[in-house]
């Protein structure tokens, strides 16, 4: 069993948290992620900042620009991953990236460095099923899973193709739109999740728009886990808080929202 399979076999809802690596600095983001983990995150998605985050809303856009302005490089994401891996042996570690930083480094070099850093999975926002073959085999050779994304626009046939042979979990995008917090989730969320269940037995984590105990519970009802992103990143961007304050706010938010689905 890989780490994802172990985490999803614990018989409780899985808590996935996203934070932007290097925002506002690499060290502060690492400390912030520790707070998310002590608040209950089972899997951490390390956002790799990109200059042109076309699938992200204003919060993650801003965090990416802040990180890049403060000298973020992809190497620093590997450093953060290595640190987390040595401190938390059971933590699921995912790099959440756009394709160009990976392509620029070279998929082979990227996969090798990710493996050495203890990364379990990679999620690439702008690599759909159609383009997967140029990166997935390389990742798999290094024991890393490419996490498939399914959206409300994805029909049943396509769901089947995308989720076949999934050895990690399916990231279900709850809304049509970019990342960001929302007060409610779509009415037909459960129907979509049910449709996904019909075609795949892989575990499902639902993300996008979840930021409160209410939205967390709504999303968790038909899924095996939930992902919270922008709500954490908002805290990362809060200039009024010192690093320690951000860490404790992250821990509190994790306890509140992840706790609501446990």
């Amino acid at each position, binding site marked *: 069993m890989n780490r994802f399979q172990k985490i999803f076999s614990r018989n409780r809802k899985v808590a996935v948290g996203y934070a932007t690596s290097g925002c506002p600095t690499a060290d502060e983001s690492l400390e912030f992620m520790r707070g998310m983990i002590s608040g209950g995150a089972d899997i951490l998605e390390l956002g790799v900042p*990109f200059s042109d985050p076309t*699938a992200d809303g204003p919060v993650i856009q801003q965090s990416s620009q802040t990180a890049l302005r403060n000298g973020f490089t992809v190497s620093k994401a590997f450093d953060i991953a290595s640190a987390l891996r040595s401190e938390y042996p059971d933590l699921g570690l995912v790099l959440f990236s756009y394709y*160009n930083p990976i392509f620029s480094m070279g998929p082979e070099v990227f996969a090798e460095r990710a493996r050495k850093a203890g990364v379990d999975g990679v999620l690439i926002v702008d690599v*759909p*099923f159609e383009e997967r073959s140029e990166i997935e085999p390389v990742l798999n050779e290094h024991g890393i899973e490419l996490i498939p994304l*399914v959206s409300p626009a*994805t029909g049943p046939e396509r769901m089947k193709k995308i989720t076949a042979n999934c050895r990690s979990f399916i990231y279900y995008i709850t809304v049509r739109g970019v990342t960001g917090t929302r007060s409610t989730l779509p009415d037909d969320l459960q129907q979509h999740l049910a449709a996904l269940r019909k075609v795949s037995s892989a575990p499902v984590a639902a993300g996008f728009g979840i930021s409160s105990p209410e939205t967390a519970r709504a999303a968790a009802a038909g899924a095996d886990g939930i992902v919270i992103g922008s709500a954490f990143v908002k805290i990362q961007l809060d200039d009024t808080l010192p690093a320690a304050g951000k860490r404790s706010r992250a821990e509190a938010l994790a306890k509140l929202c992840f706790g609501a689905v446990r």
Partner: protein
Amino acid sequence: MKNTHYDIYGGQYVAETLMPALDELTAAYEKYRNDPGFTAEMNAFLADYVGRESPLYFAERLTEHCGGAKIYLKREDLNHTGAHKINNTLGQALLARRMGKKRLIAETGAGMHGVATATVAARFGFECEVFMGEADIRRQQPNVERMAMLGAKIRSVTSGTGTLKDAMNEALRDWVATVEDTFYVIGTVAGPAPYPAMVKEFQSVIGREARRQILEKTGKLPDEVIACVGGGSNAMGIFAGFENDPSVKLVGVEAAGMGLETGHHAASINGGRVGVLHGSKSYLLQNDDGQVLDAYSVSAGLDYPGVGPEHAYLHDSGRAQYTAVTDEKAIEAFDLLCRLEGILPALESSHAVAQAIVNAPRLGKDRAIVVCLSGRGDKDMENIRAYKAGNKILTCD
């Protein structure tokens, strides 16, 4: 159609939410591109609404000035809305109408594609929103006003450097949330498949006409066809007419801005390396870590860090050559065309004219060069005035 790549270039690097929309678009495009009813409708609008065919004009005094090959200008500046952009927006709007979409969105840099989209939206009764970087809104005021008069809503984009790349990012973000009723009218031969092939096909009318016209006028094929390349739609349109004529040299002209060596340019092929942006793999201006760099050109329409994937392919295969022309040389060419021919070209097109001025003297007087004069320059007057006043340009910073 599953031919989404040009060798290693092209592809569909987009969020999963957009894939079903691209599949729907591909299916509709494949269905209608060879549909006689669609073609007839398109041709009728091209003739009576756009004003095609556009003339192929012998630039006699420019030719004399250069002292070499005869220079012919394909006058896309005489189209309705003043540029080649409408050939494409017309095609996409007719397709959107058949697909039952209610709303058109577009990105724009210089504003020409925005105006062309707003125009067809008005003509066919679509809602229309145009995404435009705030820096471009400042330097292209006349086009902003034109779009507003045509009933389009302008969405000012403040992220990044507020130029074309950021406008395209924002249009993609909008489309992810609105795919069901919205058609994204991409203005160039970039973006995910099927856009590069579809936009080429809608623009290929330029090359088809130009080939026939030059044969009528000179009895033979030209030696060179020259066009400016930002994303590359006017170039791909005119190249399309000559791609199967191996004797015709195809020349794409990128914007060298302040000079390739300065790093302040928009020459993706001459100064970038292969990368992935906005849905396709092509040459891209980027740093060592794969972060996209800001392009720079005096011409807002060329100010884009990427280039259409088929251009990358034509470059690698050697079928087309890609040169680069600085702001300074483009403005000299602009002046020359104004004074010698009474034609005020767009700054984008001035880059192609500048290359023709260099190439013509190298060829004999019995030779011919066809230049795609992709648009008119009225929109650029303020920029040119500022540049000449020594302020260089109204930059984004």
